[in-house]
């Protein structure tokens, strides 16, 4: 044992290899491999009858994707929904996270964390259906004249609701790490509340918010259920992927559509990488 450990100790590369090997095999080979296979599949087509894949290289799927207006419309709609959800969540999460991290007593802080985490355990579907009930004609929101009815607004609200904890938690973690002395120092140097927020809190908050936004953005880009439940007649990218794949039995086309959210997320990840947000996920 000691001998083996000694060998390990002398050879950090070996240690690194042993540590990194299994996770990389899992993620690098299985996951990336799957994504690569999916991408390759997007360059094939299906036969006319059984939905069997024909391994003939073709860009038809992408041609359809770029030339048929509806896909652009859906892409733009989905991205806008994702952006709206992210912004709403950021706006809603910030005061809560700030209150939790900087104002609440340790005891209340703990209770609030539980209060934020608990909804995560309630089923996604049940929550989405609860919102359907909230938005219904004659439902609780309509009764007070606040229901937007089923449609995009309802979709944005429901998704914002569903992903809110994913925004509050990283923000809270970020703010908790911000020493109180920094806020006090800022106030000591004569900064008003607004200035302290802008100059001290927000820079700390930003990477945390970006980390949260990765969740809200990605989860929204891939969602196809909430929009079905509260979205009226609208559809999102997730629906197209889902319908092409499971309903239409057309994996190549589904794969081609799937490259849109993947590309969007990769662009987003690359953009936020330098903010350090990826460390505060």
């Amino acid at each position, binding site marked *: 044992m000691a001998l083996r450990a000694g060998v390990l100790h002398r050879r950090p590369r070996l240690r690194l290899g042993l540590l990194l090997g299994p996770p990389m095999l899992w993620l690098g080979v299985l996951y990336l491999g799957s994504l690569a296979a999916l991408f390759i599949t997007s360059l094939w087509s299906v036969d006319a009858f*059984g*939905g*069997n894949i024909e391994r003939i290289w073709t860009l038809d799927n992408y041609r359809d994707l770029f030339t048929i207006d509806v896909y652009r419309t859906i892409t733009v709609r989905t991205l806008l929904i994702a952006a709206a959800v992210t912004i709403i969540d950021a706006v809603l999460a910030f005061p809560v996270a700030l209150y939790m991290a900087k104002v609440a007593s340790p005891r209340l802080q703990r209770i609030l964390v539980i209060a934020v985490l608990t909804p995560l355990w309630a089923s996604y579907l049940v929550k989405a259906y609860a919102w359907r009930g909230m938005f*219904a004609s004659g439902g609780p929101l309509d009764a007070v004249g606040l229901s937007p009815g089923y449609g995009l607004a309802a979709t944005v609200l429901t998704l914002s609701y569903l992903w809110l904890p994913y925004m509050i938690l990283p923000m809270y973690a970020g703010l908790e790490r911000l020493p109180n002395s920094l806020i006090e120092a800022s106030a000591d140097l004569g900064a008003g509340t607004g200035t302290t927020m802008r100059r001290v809190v927000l820079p700390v908050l930003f990477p945390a918010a970006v980390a949260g936004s990765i969740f809200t953005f990605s989860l929204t880009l891939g969602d196809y259920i909430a929009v*079905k439940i509260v979205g009226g007649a609208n*559809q999102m990218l997730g629906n197209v992927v889902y*319908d092409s794949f*499971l309903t239409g039995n057309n*994996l190549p086309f589904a794969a081609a559509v799937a490259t849109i959210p993947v590309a969007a997320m990769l662009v987003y990840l690359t953009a936020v990488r330098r903010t350090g947000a990826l460390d505060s996920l």
Partner: protein
Amino acid sequence: MRRSTITRAATGAVLALVLTGCGTSSGDDDGGGGGATGSEEQGGFTAPDIEMAESLGDNEGTLSVLAWPGYAEDGSTDKSVDWVTPFEEGTGCQVEVKYFGTSDEAVSLMKSGQYDVVSASGDASLRLIAGGDVAPVNTDLIDNYADVWSFLKDRDWNSVDGQMYGVPHGYGANLLMYNTDEVDPAPTSWSSVFDDAGTYSGKVTSYDSPIYIADAALYLMNTQPDLGIKDPYSLDADQLAAAVDLLKQQREHVGEYWSDYLKETQAFKTGDSVIGTTWQVIANLAQSEGATVEAFLPDEGSTGWSDTWMVSSKTEAPNCAYAWLNHIVSPEANAAVAEWFGEAPANEKACDLTSDGFCESYHAGDEAYAEKIHYWTTPIEQCLDGRTDVTCTTYQDWTQAWTEIKG
């Protein structure tokens, strides 16, 4: 269970949990050709020569069932819903159930030869016959077969040249439902959700699946004979385009598309939807919940479904398989399935066991009614209506079109 009605006809709109056998390997070239030529005209279609059971022996002890979810309940979903346990007790055949999500999946799973019986929909049955995956069924060995409505026997999705390949199990139609308070005068035709959809703009609802294109095609078949649509499941490119245009117009007035009971029932109850397609089971539910709705089958006919239980050609438990077929169309089991699933039973006597008014509300045994149903079939390249001069649009085309329609 109920929701599987949704996935039927390979639509899988709501959940179809599983991938079909497709994917990057295109290994099995299952019956591309054979089943394709199936439906309406069986010209040139010859079923593979598969031996049919002539007599029954002792039960083998186990049975592997491949079924739509909800077709083989053993009480685990709801204690009172159980027709598998009585079968096991009565026959000594221990049942193992595997559910499938789409007809494609059913076909590819049957090819593995691991399953003894399968509940096949119209779009899977012919492929199974042509592929030699299922055996002809000797209906003489199935006592309860005699009680099956005659209009379900020897149909082109369950028989070849007068030879049955299974026993009919249940069927249903897609109806037109409307809110009796809001919709006045009462509609009589599908035109109220197509050409006249504007009257209730924003409160029209349609079934959320590419297969719904057939509803539009059926409507066009009646209203625009020039298009030459003979079968709503075999549309050439122009015919599909016409159906898509019609649906795009309808889209302007659609409040939401539905794909599950709860959603549609809620929508009709709250008044968010006032007119649209439905299933009988939803209409009944909505009424029992106090919604002021009516559902009916318009004169121009409608789309619908019909399922058949079939026996694998490779089964090692033919006796248990026949016992299952006999059991599932027995009045007791058939009634239980029909009520649980929400469809018309195939067995006449089942109607004596169902709750009051059940069979009436589902129009079970109403031959004229059944004749108006155009059963769901997967659209394929070969035109099912017998045309050979054009290529028809496939279900993949329909799926893309459906995305475009919804926009």
